[in-house]
């Protein structure tokens, strides 16, 4: 019969909406409002997983995100999510879940054999063995361990869903929508402050949806619903449900994850699966409640053993009977609610086992009225049963344990007390402090603009929660600058007293040794803690690392305090002295997609395109990444065209005729002001004061440490007006560098500058016929007399106002035309049109590289941040009589001495064989593969059509003085070597006659 463990009525589920799902291939039914856990329990399914190390059967221990045991593989295919807590999965139609870490089946798991060997698998056992023979570790042992470790299996296909990140500011942020959180939000909102309230559940209310409280004469859950509705209706309030705050970061920045679509089979079109929220509140109120801790006794991990509050949740919130015959075990008053609520739901509560000698009298009377047996000064010493608890051995907490009382049951609901959820408080940088009255940690002194209220603050009485929330809300708003008249908090009818007495480990029946679990997910037992401390791993951090307690996916939410207490017992010290481990984000595990957000795959980084990009694309250009830019690398023309014959063709077209190249990506900086010349003079190693208007000059700038930073030509457009070009790679860096020196070192210089990289499209027209081409479209005289090498001027290209520069990177007669970018493509087309009859070509970065190598122009691969001006043979440019950035550090002895890598040219001595970038230069005739001293490397290579030979630029130890030497260029990665001759880096036209022609 379906859902035979449902109560006849009650619960916040919609019994009208039946939902089907499957677990381990078997179909079940539940109701809307169920979690996977409540639906499984409604169907009597308690065995849901196997433990990490011993593969012991495990059930459902909690009803929330602290669940250590009931973790399953949710969904399938590319949407599969391993290690998902059944207690937090909202049921949806067609949900598919499977148990993990078992083989062949959950019911029969062969690895359960580990249970027998458990004494061998004591804490840290792997540090003590698997060492012989050495090679066996990586090849044998580790594979076995790795396969055994881990829980679920990950999807291997790309995640089809989308994630995004949003930002919201507010005056008061309330975390948690239980009694404290709701009244805090209400109090703050009434002052008209901007309020955000966040709760991880689909409905607000927290413990009010779990317990039978009365507030202002209504059932607690009713009051919660009405308050939530009131808040939602206020336009200064933003209510987030299904949203978990996972991190409290510096400067009061709060990270949260909103599960937008996880309660649906797939996200609706255009909607993300999950969304990260970054909240920027003035004040934060932490109303994050408390987490119940289990009792530590023999076999306390068996299916059918759950937290007392969880049992209550399932009955009250989900209308599910978690058992038929129940023992409630406790060391405090709170668990009595469980006994009473379960009894009222028609479940047989066979006994309440209270470790305290003298429990609260009124509660004892109430039990008597309900004729529930009460055992005082007693505890469950051990549970027995196979895949479900069958009976408990009850021992007395004082005196001997030799005649335990056996009580049959199918559910043990236990409470070891409550731990305030101080995680976010701790993440904020504060230190929680130990409070002896509740045997747990409570918030300490605040380090950021946060305050805790209610159970999170160690106050478990309902009226205290409402009052503290109310006060914190008003105060928070007030501190954020909002006044409001005082409103009293809602009135609770509840005299709950907590009255906790310590019971860290229950005595075991007949003093037999049992497995008493502390961290159930990582299978850490009380005996492991004892062993660790015996071996000297006795500070709390060492303990965690050695035993792995608290390192599992539940992050020790239910185990940390118990472990600490047991360690303290071991060391015979009070708990505060043993210390507390700091909590780290995230509060609950959060999908990586959430942190990645939208900027993944193609959107990982923006693409930068020049104005000529579309034309290049139409021509079938092959592009290359240059920073974020896409540049045309070469232009295949015919079928079968390769990189090689394209760049050869494009180079020859340039050298023998004329061709265009898009140089838009170079950085361009407009510099103006009376002190502009002086500023440049300090920036560059060479002289700038006397550069005539209408002229360009090549410049080199260093970093303060004396290494070459960037190079380029800068032109003087007017007396106080310069136009600088930088390399593509350093465009942004050079501007920031200039701003830094101007604002932090030389603020008195009257100069301003801004980037104009984007304003201009740059087109280089290069080749012996470049002048002839330009004459047809440019309205000024570009003859050598009127417009000599390094001349700069304004002109019109057809009707477009343009800037013309007589500069050359190719080493040919060349000009560079800059036009406003929206005209860039038109200008490019006009130039092609004008050059048509002379057969103008285009070229890409590959041919550009070929020509700069032939010409010995250094570029990024030589200016690798480790070379000085001297190393690249341009020390002569430096004017050391003036001051410039990097001057002094470039004069350090090691930079002037021998052994520096210096730029050289290299020629392949093997006809038809080209050199390779990344090859190293070594003494000739060394056996390939032998360890040998690298004397340098090849930084840029090409085949030179001009010289019909493979040439290269390289950095060679003391290279400047080694022209003519022969070396081997070795490429051990591919077992290649090639004989080369060292030469001057300028291969063609050393006098520079062509550029001046």
């Amino acid at each position, binding site marked *: 019969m379906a859902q035979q463990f449902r109560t006849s009525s009650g619960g916040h589920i919609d019994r009208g909406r039946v939902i089907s799902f499957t677990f381990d291939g078997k179909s079940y039914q539940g109701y809307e409002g169920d979690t996977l856990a409540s639906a499984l329990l409604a169907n009597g399914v308690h065995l849901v997983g196997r433990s990490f190390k011993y593969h012991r059967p495990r059930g459902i221990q909690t009803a929330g995100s602290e669940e250590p045991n009931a973790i399953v593989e949710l969904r399938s295919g*590319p949407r599969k999510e391993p290690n998902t807590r059944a207690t937090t999965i909202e049921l949806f139609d067609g949900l598919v879940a499977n148990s993990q870490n078992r083989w062949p089946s959950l019911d029969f798991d062969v690895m359960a054999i580990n249970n027998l060997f458990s004494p061998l698998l004591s804490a840290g*056992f792997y540090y003590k*063995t698997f060492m012989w023979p050495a090679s066996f570790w990586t090849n044998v042992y580790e594979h076995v361990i790795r396969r055994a470790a881990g*829980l679920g299996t990950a999807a291997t296909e790309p995640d089809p869903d989308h994630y995004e990140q949003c930002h919201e500011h507010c005056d008061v942020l309330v975390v948690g929508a239980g009694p404290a959180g709701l009244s805090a939000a209400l109090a703050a909102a009434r002052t008209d402050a901007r309020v955000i309230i966040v709760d991880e559940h689909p409905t607000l209310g927290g413990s009010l949806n779990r317990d039978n409280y009365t507030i202002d004469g209504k059932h607690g859950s009713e009051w919660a619903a009405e308050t939530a509705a009131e808040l939602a209706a206020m336009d200064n309030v933003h209510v987030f449900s299904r949203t978990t705050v996972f991190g409290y970061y510096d400067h009061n920045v709060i990270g949260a994850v909103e599960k937008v679509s996880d309660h649906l089979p797939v996200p609706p079109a255009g909607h993300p699966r999950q969304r990260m929220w970054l909240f920027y509140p003035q004040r934060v109120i932490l109303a994050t409640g408390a987490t119940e801790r289990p009792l530590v006794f023999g076999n306390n991990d068996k299916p059918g053993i759950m937290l007392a509050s969880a049992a209550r949740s399932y009955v009250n919130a989900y209308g599910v009977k978690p058992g038929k015959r129940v023992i409630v075990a406790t060391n405090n008053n709170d668990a009595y609610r469980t006994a009473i609520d379960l009894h009222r739901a028609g479940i047989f509560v066979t006994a309440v086992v209270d470790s305290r000698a003298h429990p609260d009298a009124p509660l004892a009377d109430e039990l008597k009225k309900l004729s529930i047996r009460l055992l005082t000064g007693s505890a469950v010493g051990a549970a027995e049963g196979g895949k479900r608890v069958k009976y408990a051995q009850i021992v007395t907490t004082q005196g001997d344990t030799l005649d335990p009382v056996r009580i049959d049951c199918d559910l043990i609901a236990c409470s070891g007390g409550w731990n305030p959820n101080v995680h976010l408080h701790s993440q904020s940088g504060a230190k929680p402090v130990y409070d002896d009255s509740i045997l747990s940690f409570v918030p300490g002194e605040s380090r950021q603009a946060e305050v805790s209220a209610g159970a999170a603050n160690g106050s478990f009485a309902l009226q205290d929660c409402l009052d503290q929330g109310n006060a914190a809300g008003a105060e928070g708003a007030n501190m954020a600058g909002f006044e409001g008249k005082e409103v009293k908090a809602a009135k609770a009818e509840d005299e709950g007293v907590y009255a906790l007495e310590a019971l860290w480990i229950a005595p075991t029946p007949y003093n037999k040794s049992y497995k008493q679990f502390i961290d159930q997910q990582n299978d850490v037992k009380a005996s492991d803690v004892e062993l660790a401390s015996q071996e000297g791993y006795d500070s709390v951090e060492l303990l965690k690392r050695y035993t792995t307690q608290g390192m599992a996916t539940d992050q020790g939410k239910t185990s940390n305090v118990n472990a600490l207490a047991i360690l303290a017992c071991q060391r015979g010290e009070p708990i505060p002295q043993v210390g507390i481990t700091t909590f780290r984000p995230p509060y609950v595990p959060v999908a990586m997609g959430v942190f990645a957000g939208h900027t993944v795959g193609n959107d990982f980084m923006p693409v930068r395109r020049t104005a000529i990009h579309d034309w290049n694309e139409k021509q079938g250009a092959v592009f290359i990444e240059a920073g974020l830019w896409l540049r045309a690398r070469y232009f295949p023309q015919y079928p079968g065209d390769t990189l090689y014959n394209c760049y050869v063709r494009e180079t020859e077209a340039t050298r023998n005729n004329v061709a265009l190249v898009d140089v838009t990506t170079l950085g361009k900086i407009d510099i103006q002001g009376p002190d502009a010349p002086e500023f440049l003079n300090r920036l560059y190693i060479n002289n700038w004061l006397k550069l005539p208007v209408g002229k360009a000059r090549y410049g080199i700038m260093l970093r303060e440490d004396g290494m070459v930073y960037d190079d380029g030509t800068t032109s003087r457009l007017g007396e106080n007006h310069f136009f600088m070009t930088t390399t593509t790679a350093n465009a942004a860096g050079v501007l920031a560098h200039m701003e830094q020196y101007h604002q932090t070192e030389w603020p008195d210089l009257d100069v301003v500058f801004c980037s104009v990289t984007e304003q201009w499209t740059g087109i280089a027209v290069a080749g012996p016929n470049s002048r002839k081409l330009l004459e047809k479209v440019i309205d000024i005289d570009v003859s050598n007399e009127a417009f000599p090498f390094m001349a700069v001027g304004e002109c019109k290209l057809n009707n477009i106002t343009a800037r013309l520069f007589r500069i050359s990177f190719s080493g040919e007669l060349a000009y560079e035309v800059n036009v406003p970018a929206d005209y860039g493509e038109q200008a490019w087309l006009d130039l092609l049109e004008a050059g048509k009859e002379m057969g103008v070509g285009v070229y890409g970065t590959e041919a550009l590289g070929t020509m700069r190598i032939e010409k010995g122009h250094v570029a990024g691969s030589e200016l690798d941040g480790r070379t000085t001006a001297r190393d690249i043979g341009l020390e002569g440019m430096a004017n050391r009589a003036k001051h410039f950035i990097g001057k002094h550090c470039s004069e350090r002895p090691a930079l002037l001495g021998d052994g520096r890598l210096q730029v050289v040219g290299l020629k392949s001595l093997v006809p038809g064989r080209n050199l390779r970038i990344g090859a190293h230069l070594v003494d000739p005739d060394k056996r390939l593969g032998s360890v040998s001293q690298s004397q340098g490397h090849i930084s840029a290579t090409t085949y030179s059509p001009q010289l019909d030979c493979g040439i290269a630029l390289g950095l060679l130890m003391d290279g400047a003085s080694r022209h003519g030497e022969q070396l081997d260029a070795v490429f051990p990665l591919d077992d290649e070597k090639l004989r080369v001759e060292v030469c001057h880096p300028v291969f063609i036209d050393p006098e520079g006659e062509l550029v001046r022609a």
Partner: protein
Amino acid sequence: MHYSALSLVKQALTGNRGWTRAWRNPEPRKQYDVIIIGGGGHGLATAYYLAKLHGITNVAVLEKGYIGGGNTGRNTTIVRSNYMLNANSQFYEHSMKLWEGLSQDLNYNVMFSQRGVLNLFHTDAQRDAAARRGNAMRLNGVDAVMHDLDGVRKLMPHLDFSKNTRFPILGGLAQPRGGTARHDAVAWGYARGADRLGVDIIQKCEVTAIKRDGDKVLGVETSRGFIGAGQVGVAVAGNSSRLFDMVGMKLPIESHVLQAFVTEGIKPLVDTVCTFGAGHFYISQSDKGGLVFGGDIDGWNTYAQRGNLPTFNHVVAGGVTMMPCLARLRVLRQWGGVMDMSMDGTPIIGKTPINNLYLNGGWCYGGFKATPASGWVFAHTIAHDKPHKLNADFTLERFREGGMLDEKGVGASPKSH
């Protein structure tokens, strides 16, 4: 006691009651021949090699908290020697060789797993740089393999190999002997090894001042009183500046935080260490099943050992771009370790202007993999009062003289290394 399969079985049969402390918990003596400040992997390794290789056993390691509680226990446990510059390549390769016999040497399984390290490249320029580095490695006797797409696919089958991503993968440079180790075990193994040779490991002992007589150190003031020493070695990377402030010295170091992250445990998915070339992201899978990953430092001075969001988001965006199936896996923990970021990205191991005071720091994020060699050369430097040739280039003086070892070529900018 000696660890072996046999001892495990014997203890198992007797309820594991016979295991003794892995290291003693001694009271500090008045005077030691050598004091090592810092009970992390480097300090403990130094003490171990001082005792084992140089016969200096009257040694104390002073740790302000608990051993291995600093960067040793906070890093992403990657071991590699895939450096370009000769000095680095040779030093880290020496470390690699020590790793290869470490478990047996220490009789403590440090779980050194040579599953390989793979650096992806996505542009021609990156491929060229990888070639230069890989060839340099080979010339220095270090293993290196250049992989094309198919080679990469064999090692990391679940990466995004499509062209439909911002920076498609072109290939990768691998060091097959690289891998990972169990970070805590390294500290504990060296501690146990040193302890067995007579070294005193003194926890909860914070150095508050360094007592000097001119340019000679006499000993250290600590939270547990004054302790005299013939020589003092400082191995507190992350806090080197604070220690040397005690002797009025400024170092070419800034402290920055490097974050690390781990996901929930899953069955084997990532079988090598893999780094993304188009963003800051590297990943490996621990023997416990968690995917351990990291990226770039946050890039500003800090001594706070905690994580932060902007870098986290950028790092994960790179990870999901590289390997799209990661998106659904959950991050379990985010933490941070404080790095000594040196001014050229390379460590400083050697003498200082103060005669018997020695510095081992500036590790940036290369510290863990260096642990064995770092201790090895530092012990040699202290024992002989001069550097071994393996750390001869790692002097403090190199910055003054212009002998920087700048792998990245970004200059005196710690945030960029």
